[in-house]
């Protein structure tokens, strides 16, 4: 096994080892547990850096895939391994890096929690699962870790298992993801056996590399066959995409993410902002060669992203819980990424994923620091004026906001610009509309973030408990992430600006590019018009926020009154939860009750009836002997006659 693969396995299993150690030995010793967890993360990160140096290094002479047989029956072989190409290494760097910051942050934030060890065990388990998704070499392995991620998120959301809200939120997250996984499993199986039926056992496979070979094949026969079954294949692709929809919280399977904020804030930062929710985007990048050939697939993806971005941004305006605001902004940013994918710009999507990971993690930790500073107060209406009391948090939060709002030169600007420019030239049906939506969302983002910042850090303090700055263990990671959020942009400054630009895209080319003949694929270039439009939108958004909340030049209440129906619609989050509740409570439960009824009152009754009938016959038989001797004799002789007659007639 060459070193690269070895790094891969180290990255993958270091956190798992940490989990095992904590659960088996150190549940009682808090400090030790946290150090084991951080140690595991450190090891993974170190190995990751080494791997990155090799992968992005000068000589690209390495074997990216290492697999072993995990399960094999007949012609079907399900491998297990690590795939160390640009995409996965890039992503795992984010996971381990951001993860590390958040582990450290947690040691401060979780002070005095009695479930401390459990918390770090689950956190490590999550890192293991997430890295598994990132490094996996085939669909089944991805699915395995896909589910594990769901489980660990279930465990962490439900961390405060004495709180009904937390427990239910965990359940909701798990089940929503299960629905996605249902589609995903179906898609995987459908894809595999379609290939089996059309191309035979030898060519069909779960492995990404082998699949890519099929999709990129020049062999006319294969191209022919693939073309013949494009319908089925596109369907399979979209079914797999449902998995991504659930995990990346796209409409309509987004409902779990806001509730997931029930978990501890670092968890929200790590999983429900930076990494886990990005898994969907990552998966689509990984499988981009499968989406690319199908206009319809891309169209669905793009529209889903656009709609999500828009709807979520809307809701973000009416939230008062600071974490909820960030949660909805996460939704809408994920929408952005998916939109980019649909527009055929996976590189842009990954770019935004990266930058978003940094600044959204930063924002969440910032909010965490705020909450911690305000003694676990989450309502923005009870905050304000915190810029004086917690300066570090304030400035880092500002940086994050700027990045998120897409103000140049912060990283968010570049990535968002990349997406918008991709949208502006996209080929999917209704691309112009999507572009417009994108710009609108940029505006809204800036606006609600402005609102959030103003309510939290400016004006007068409206709370009761005395706020204070957080310890270094918390501010440290903030600073680190802030730095990253500022400079992450350089990863892929477009060519138009500097000839060294577009690095990330080039790095990812191998991993994500679609077949050469793919129409929608688009060489990322710098379009000044788009940049200007985007910036203007963002600035206008901030201006609105300023006028409404800081200067109070315009009354927010009168505005709300003006758009009452829209406002209620937003407050009710477009009634998604109600709809699902109705579905579960009425449809699902009714079916269940009906089956229960059949079980008890039909099937069981039938069985008991058989027994009852037998018993009744027994009761009748015993009446034949009533004690009167002459009746006995009659019975006997009559019986004899009947029997003999019957037999004689029978013969």
């Amino acid at each position, binding site marked *: 096994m060459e070193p690269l693969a070895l790094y891969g396995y180290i990255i993958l299993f270091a956190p798992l080892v940490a989990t095992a150690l904590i659960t088996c030995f150190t549940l009682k010793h808090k400090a030790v547990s946290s150090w084991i967890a951080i140690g595991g993360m450190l090891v993974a990160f170190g190995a990751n850096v080494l791997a990155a140096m090799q992968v992005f290094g000068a000589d690209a002479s390495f074997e990216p895939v290492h697999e072993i047989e995990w399960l094999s029956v007949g012609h079907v072989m399900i491998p297990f391994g690590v795939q160390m190409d640009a995409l996965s290494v890039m992503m795992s760097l984010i996971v381990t890096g951001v993860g590390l910051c958040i582990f450290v942050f947690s040691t401060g934030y979780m002070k005095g929690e009695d479930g401390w060890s459990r918390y770090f065990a689950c956190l490590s388990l999550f890192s293991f699962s997430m890295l598994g998704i990132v490094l996996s070499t085939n669909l089944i392995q991805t699915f395995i870790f896909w589910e594990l991620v769901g489980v660990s998120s279930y465990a962490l959301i439900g961390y405060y298992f004495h709180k009904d809200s937390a427990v239910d939120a965990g359940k909701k997250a798990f089940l929503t993801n299960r629905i996605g996984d249902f589609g995903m499993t179906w898609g995987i199986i459908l894809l595999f056996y379609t290939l089996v039926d059309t191309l035979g056992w030898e060519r069909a496979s779960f492995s990404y590399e082998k699949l890519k070979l099929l999709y990129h094949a020049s062999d006319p026969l294969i191209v022919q066959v693939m073309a013949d079954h494009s319908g089925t294949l596109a369907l399979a692709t979209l079914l797999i995409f449902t998995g991504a929809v659930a995990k990346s919280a796209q409409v309509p399977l987004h409902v779990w993410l806001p509730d997931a904020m029930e978990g501890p804030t670092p968890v929200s930062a790590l999983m429900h902002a930076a990494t886990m929710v990005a898994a969907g985007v990552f998966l689509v990048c990984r499988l981009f060669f499968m989406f690319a050939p199908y206009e319809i697939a891309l169209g669905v993806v793009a529209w889903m992203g656009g709609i999500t971005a828009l709807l979520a941004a809307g809701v973000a305006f009416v939230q008062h819980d600071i974490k909820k605001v960030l949660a909805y902004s996460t939704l809408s940013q994920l929408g952005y990424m998916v939109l980019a994918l649909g527009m055929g710009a996976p590189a842009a999507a990954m770019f935004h994923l990266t930058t978003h990971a940094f600044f959204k993690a930063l924002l969440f930790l910032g909010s965490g620091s705020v909450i911690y500073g305000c003694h676990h107060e989450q309502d923005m209406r009870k905050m304000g004026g915190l810029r004086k009391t917690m300066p570090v948090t304030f400035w880092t939060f500002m940086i994050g906001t700027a990045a998120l709002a897409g103000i140049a030169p912060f990283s968010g600007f570049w990535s968002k610009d990349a997406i918008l420019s991709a949208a502006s030239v996209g080929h999917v049906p209704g691309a112009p509309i999507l572009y417009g939506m994108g710009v609108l969302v940029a505006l809204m983002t800036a606006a609600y973030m402005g609102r959030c910042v103003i309510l939290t850090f400016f004006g007068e303090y409206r709370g009761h408990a005395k706020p204070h700055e957080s310890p270094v263990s918390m501010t440290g990671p903030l600073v680190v992430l802030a730095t990253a959020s500022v400079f992450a942009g350089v990863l892929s400054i477009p060519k138009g600006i500097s000839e060294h630009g577009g690095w990330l895209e080039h790095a990812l080319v191998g991993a994500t590019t679609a077949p050469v003949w793919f129409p929608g694929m688009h060489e990322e270039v710098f379009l000044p018009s788009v940049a200007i439009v985007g910036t203007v939108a963002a600035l206008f958004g901030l201006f609105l926020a300023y006028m409404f909340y800081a200067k109070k030049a315009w009354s927010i209440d009168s505005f709300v009154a003006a758009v009452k129906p829209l406002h209620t619609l937003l407050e009710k989050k477009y009634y998604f939860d109600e709809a699902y509740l109705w579905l579960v409570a009425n449809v699902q439960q009714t079916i269940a009750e009906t089956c229960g009824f059949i079980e008890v009152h039909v099937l069981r009754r039938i069985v008991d009836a058989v027994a009852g009938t037998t018993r009744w016959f027994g*009761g009748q*038989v015993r009446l034949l002997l009533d004690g009167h*001797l002459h009746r006995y004799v009659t*019975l*006997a002789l009559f*019986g004899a006659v009947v029997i*003999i007659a019957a*037999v004689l007639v029978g013969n």
Partner: protein
Amino acid sequence: MDKLNLILLVPELLAVAAGIGVMLWDLWLPREKKIALSTASMVAAVVLFLSTFIPAVAEGGHAMGGTFLVDGMALLMKRAFAVTALFVFLISREYVEDLERGQGEFYTLCLLALSGMFLCASVNDFMSLFVALEVVTVSFFVLVAFKRRSTKSVEAGLKLLVIGSVSAALLLYGIAFVYGATGTVFFDELRADVVAPDFIVSTELVIGLFLIFLGLGFKTSAVPMHVWVPDVYEGAPTPVTAFMSVGSKLAGFVLMLRVLEVFGRSAAIAAELTPFLALIGALTLFYGNLGAIPQTNIKRLMGYSSIGQCGYILLGIAAAWTMGMSGALFYMVSYVFTNMLVFGVIVYVARATKSHDLDDYSGLARSNPMLCAAMTIGLLSLAGVPPLMGFVGKLLLLGSAFGSPELHWLVYVGLINVVIAMYYYLCVIKRMWIHDARSPAKPVAPMRVKIALGISVLILLAGGFAPQILEGLTAPAAAELGLPSRPR
């Protein structure tokens, strides 16, 4: 053939002698010493059992001018009868002790009945068949009505008497028809005739055989001549019930097997008999097992159960091939131990609770685990549950019937009844194991009975785990009978 060859009759003669001896000794014994009679009869039973191993007897053959036959089946069954008698004497000791008078008669009658059973095993012509049968029946008339002061006992005796005589008349009339059709009552001649090529199966013969099987059905408690069973089982003294439920029943069966063996050689006659026996078997199965469900008196329950058990043996007899015979013999032997086990428990539980109500058995598992275990194993063996002897026998019988396609329906009937039987046996077991005791009475069994029960438990288990031991005896005996060795 026509030499007297009395040596073969030693067991029978000994049995009669023992009976008379006990009766005479009874005259000399003072009241308080009468218990010796019980010991004497136990010894007699053992001696009788051993007497079947006398080489001359064991090698078998004809006697009394060919009217008396000792073959494998005869020997096997005589031993079974002797064991039965021994069991009866073991469990009846206390009962007889309590009799104010007539201990001697009790044992004498038992021994005479035993001699009758011995004869049944060896009859080789219709006359001795009738006589042997009546010897058994008449002794049981008296035994059943032995408690002359008890209305139940007397009523049971009367019912047994009337129905017994009616069935005897049917039997005789049947024999008369067969005699009329064939011109002989000697089995050896009949065996030769029925397989003769020019032999024609006349309606008289068939009807005669039907009547004969009905008449024998009285003893084996087969529908429709079963009507006496529940009442008499309930009314008779418990040891007598035990003796009757095994001894006289098996006597009836051995006669059935004998007649079948004689006439079943001819495929034509077998073809006539099989549907008849199958029909009777099916009716018997349903009657016994359904009737048992609502019973609340253990002896009555056992009565119905014994009707049901009869149905299974009829399955094998209806199949009328070696496996069926072997299965029937196997089942009969296992029936000896099974039923004796159950009745042994019944006797001593009844002694404690002074009644035969099923609820007396509640909580037996706690009050006397040993008796409870014995009863459970006995009932399970009756239900045909592995690893017990009864299961193997039942499987052989069902299997043998399954061999001939036209009997498949009968096997299905049998299987349905296995489930029904399972139900009511489990109802008893449920009371013993699950329910709490109702009366403080704690049943106890004397050591000799404990040993006897223990031994029969072991035999039941052995017969389940290693059926080849017993099967090694029944299979050759069945093979001797000269019925076809594979399904018809």
